[in-house]
């Protein structure tokens, strides 16, 4: 029974990486978008700058999608020939997907809040845009680290 569930575990990992990282990004982009709209209401000339800030928390969702894509490709779902995975292999793939799933969710939420604070800087001091962008960009580091580990782990699993 357990060995028959290998492909299910693997698909669960791919789904979680898309769902959790996507949820985080949706929140982050949403909250930053509210702040961006507030600034543009008063000063439409800042649209370009605040739009970049708003997009920063969106990358975690892309990372989740990338990990899911690699997973689906490796287990043969995309080519229409699913691999015959054991239960242990399926669980390994699930575990490999978790870094980007969990870190994606948490980091995108925090990046969204940091982007809101930085949009406040742009609203008052638009010439400080470069510095303001660095604050939310720092949060990105941890999403990238999680992405690297997830990709390396998925590619390292032998079928």
């Amino acid at each position, binding site marked *: 029974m357990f060995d028959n569930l290998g492909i299910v575990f693997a698909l669960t990992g791919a789904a979680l990486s898309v769902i959790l990282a996507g949820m985080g990004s949706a929140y982050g982009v949403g*909250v930053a978008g*509210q*702040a*961006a*709209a*507030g*600034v543009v*209401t*008063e*000063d439409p000339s*800042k649209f370009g700058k605040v739009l970049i800030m708003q997009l920063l928390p969106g990358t975690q969702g892309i990372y989740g999608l990338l990990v899911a894509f690699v997973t689906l490709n490796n287990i043969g779902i995309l080519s229409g020939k699913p691999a015959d995975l054991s239960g242990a292999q399926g669980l390994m793939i699930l575990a490999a997907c978790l870094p980007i799933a969990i870190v994606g969710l948490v980091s995108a939420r925090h990046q969204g*809040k940091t982007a*809101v*604070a930085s*949009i*406040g800087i742009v*609203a*008052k001091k638009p010439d400080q845009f470069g510095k303001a962008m660095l604050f939310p960009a720092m949060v990105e580091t941890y999403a990238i680290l999680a992405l690297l580990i997830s990709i390396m782990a998925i590619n390292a699993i032998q079928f």
Partner: protein
Amino acid sequence: MSEQYTYAVARIRSLETALFSNAVIDRLIACSDYEQCLQFLVEKGWGGADIPMEAEAILGREEEKIWEVIKELKIDMDKFDVLSYPKLFHNLKAAIKEVCTSEKSRHIFYDDVSIPGEEMRAIIQEKDFTKLPAFMQDAAKEAYECLLHTGDGQLCDVIIDRAALDAVYHAGQEAEDAIIRDYAESTVAVADIKIAVRSQRTAKSLEFMKRAMAECGSVDVSRLAKAALNGMDAIQEYLKDTVYAQGAEALAESPSSFERWCDNRIIQTISPQKYNAFTIGPIVAYVIARQNEIKTVRIILSGKLNELPDDSIRERVREMYV
């Protein structure tokens, strides 16, 4: 932390760029006369196309603009109770005086509050105090009867001002947001200190002070009133032991320095909101900052109209939020 105010705070951040800084205030003071000051204000966007070139018309329009922004942000106006209560109680005071003395031209009403002037006048005329909010009813009845039977306008003012301070303090205590609590606490404490100072100068009794002062957490009203009986030095000594020690220094300097410190203390209370991105704090702070800005401009215009020297005007100018 709530994200409910994210849009509003970001919009306020943009609006804060138009607030007058100390440098702009210096340029306003440097204007050669009253007319040039008005021209300077109009160039800065104050007033409006259909607003006459008069100080009160321009300042009145600026006050209206504050509340227009808040209404656009769709924020529950209950959050601003601590800011609107003084105007509401002012309307009560004006209505009682108008009804009891039949002097109609002396008083002005605020119409941007929950009970505008006409409605307040009707309530007082009908003596239907139950139509007032619960926290106003007793004070309204007492002040009305006091003025009607004794004709003592000052006592009437004391009763209503005390009720206003109590209402502000209680609204602050019940508020969820720290800035509203801090603002209410500072407002009531500073008002108590002002009462003590003025009572000392006019040799008022202990009973008068106790009746006028409202209880609050940061000032011991009883000790402050007793200090006021013992002289200005005693008030300064008492203040040195409180968080209002700078008030003692201002008091020692000059009466106008003390008045300026009173307003600056409120601005210092709200200053941390410049770095807050997610609560209602920056929005409340913006309203207070705009009101402070209008008050400062009024002081400058009044000084220019009376041809006071620039240094004398500068001594009276309040600290700016930005």
